[in-house]
């Protein structure tokens, strides 16, 4: 299916990442957003609030992030594609409803424009320190999808991907921007609607009497339904059976929670979104994501100029982590260098996947700015020795 032309601002624009992300939501078919102001993410919903009344849809500013993150899920069950936007402190509050979206398999998108933490931290400056919170921040065992754009153009493109993946897998998809990407203005090309692929909601065709709201298909994903269509369905955050009824026993818990994780396995393996360069002859591979991947690219250029065989592995989809790819590389490279705007988060995943087959060298940065490319270069030089 192609994008609904009403939401697509076809053309060449000069936009910051937050505004490009908003255009991505509209192109993806989002017609509902609930938000609560927080720097540096608010521009996304400010633009949505300005744009949506002429496209046809609703923006509502809620009383807090708890409300915003559950209002979007009410909207999804009412039939809309919906999202919310936040940063650090608000993301912490939204953890409750990331869990609810996981448990009720509500397709929706959370945008987190990362700033420095912990707590109020650095409201106006970048960090990438919410990566583990994105993966594990809500209680219980679960899986989510997280994408890391590194430019305003990708804020547009990947937001559409995020909505598509949300519909395909029925999970919350987290757009993990950072303040730098969110507030950086560059050229953004928005294609014709006919060139934008949209995954429509997979609404069941079965009659109500033959339909169970959480009965998985072959891909382990149940068919969707919406309120008002006569299905009289029930959803709950409690452990539930295929009918959506609460069921407090070991078997139902095991079946449900395993499925919620297993349905995402295709993304951890073959389909993992990433961008690679010079891996064929690489001795050292720099693994990076978001804004850091651009700084790392500069370091890679400098390393190649020095004659070091350095390769690039840019994580676009941070979760599920592309572990098969890293494991395979670990068998044939000397070392991984992992720069990130935190004191060591994704580097642990790289270590886990490398499983001792290659050295893993973190290049940490507490946030508030980006790395000096020289710092990454120094680690590459060390790693190549």
């Amino acid at each position: 299916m192609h994008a609904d032309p009403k939401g697509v601002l076809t053309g060449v624009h000069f936009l910051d990442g937050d505004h490009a992300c908003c255009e991505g939501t509209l192109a993806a078919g989002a017609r509902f957003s609930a938000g609560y102001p927080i720097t540096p993410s608010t521009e996304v919903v400010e633009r949505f609030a300005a744009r949506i009344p002429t496209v046809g849809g609703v923006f509502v500013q809620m009383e807090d992030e708890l409300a915003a993150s559950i209002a979007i899920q009410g909207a999804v069950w009412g039939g809309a594609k919906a999202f919310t936007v936040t940063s650090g402190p608000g993301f912490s509050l939204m953890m409750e409803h990331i869990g609810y979206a996981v448990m009720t398999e509500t397709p929706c998108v959370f945008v987190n424009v990362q700033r420095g933490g912990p707590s109020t931290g650095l409201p106006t400056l970048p960090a990438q320190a919410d990566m583990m919170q994105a993966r594990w921040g809500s209680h219980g065992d679960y899986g989510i999808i997280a994408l890391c754009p590194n430019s305003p153009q990708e804020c547009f493109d990947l937001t559409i991907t995020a909505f598509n993946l949300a519909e395909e897998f029925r999970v919350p998809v987290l757009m993990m921007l950072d303040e730098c990407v969110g507030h950086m203005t560059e050229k953004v090309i928005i294609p014709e609607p006919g060139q934008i692929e949209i995954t429509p909601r997979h609404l069941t065709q079965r009659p109500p009497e033959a339909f169970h709201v959480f009965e998985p298909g072959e891909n382990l994903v149940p068919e969707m339904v919406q309120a008002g269509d006569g299905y009289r369905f029930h959803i709950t955050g409690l452990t539930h059976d295929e009918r959506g009824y609460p069921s407090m026993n070991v078997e139902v818990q095991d079946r449900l929670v395993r499925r919620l994780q297993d349905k995402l396995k295709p993304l951890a393996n073959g389909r993992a979104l990433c961008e690679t360069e010079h891996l064929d002859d690489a001795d050292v591979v720099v693994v990076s994501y978001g804004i850091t991947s651009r700084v790392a690219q500069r370091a890679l250029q400098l390393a190649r100029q020095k004659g070091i065989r350095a390769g690039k592995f840019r994580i676009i989809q941070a979760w599920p982590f592309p572990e098969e790819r890293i494991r395979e590389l670990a068998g044939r490279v000397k070392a991984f260098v992992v720069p990130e705007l935190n004191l060591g988060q994704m580097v642990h995943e790289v270590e886990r996947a490398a499983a001792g087959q290659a050295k893993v060298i973190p290049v940490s940065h507490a946030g508030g700015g980006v790395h000096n490319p020289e710092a990454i270069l120094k680690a590459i030089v060390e790693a190549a020795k």
Partner: protein
Amino acid sequence: MRPLTEIRIAGFGGQGVILAAAIVGKAAALFQGGYATMTQNFGPEARGGSCSAQVILSSEPILYPYVTQPDVLVVMSQEAYTRFTPELKHGGILILEQDLVRVDRFPDGARVFGVPATRLAEELGRKVVLNVVMVGFFGAVTKLLDAEALRRAVADSVPPALQKLNLEAFDQGYAYGAQAVGRLAEHGEVDSLDALEFL
């Protein structure tokens, strides 16, 4: 377009600093086939007080997003002048709002241009277009971008009702800049002007 040019535009809130930077970036990225990355300083200090934006122009994709040592510095307030002049690259261009900035000592190796942008804007009837006067002046003295690309970026960045005024402001600033360059040429300083190409 040169491989990489770093520009900082700074002043105080309400002068249209961010829009000026956006016009420059847009001209390069949308109307001249190059790349541009604009960033700006946010936060409490950006709400009314001092205000600064950074643009990087390049003929290749831009990786590192921030300006480290500007080739061109445009300052529209005394505070911006004091704060940012020390970071100007040796041999770089310093552009001043000459009525708002009092220069105590010219930085070594910099080529300095002054323009009464606010006054020129007032002569057009609207003080708010001083930023676009400044963009015109910037275009003429730096020659980094085609005048036509900048003009199109101006037209593309303001509401239709204000297009005519802003284009006049741009032309005014550009003409003022061209005169300044002409005067330098008469004094046989053409070579130093072209030096920017080799920074």
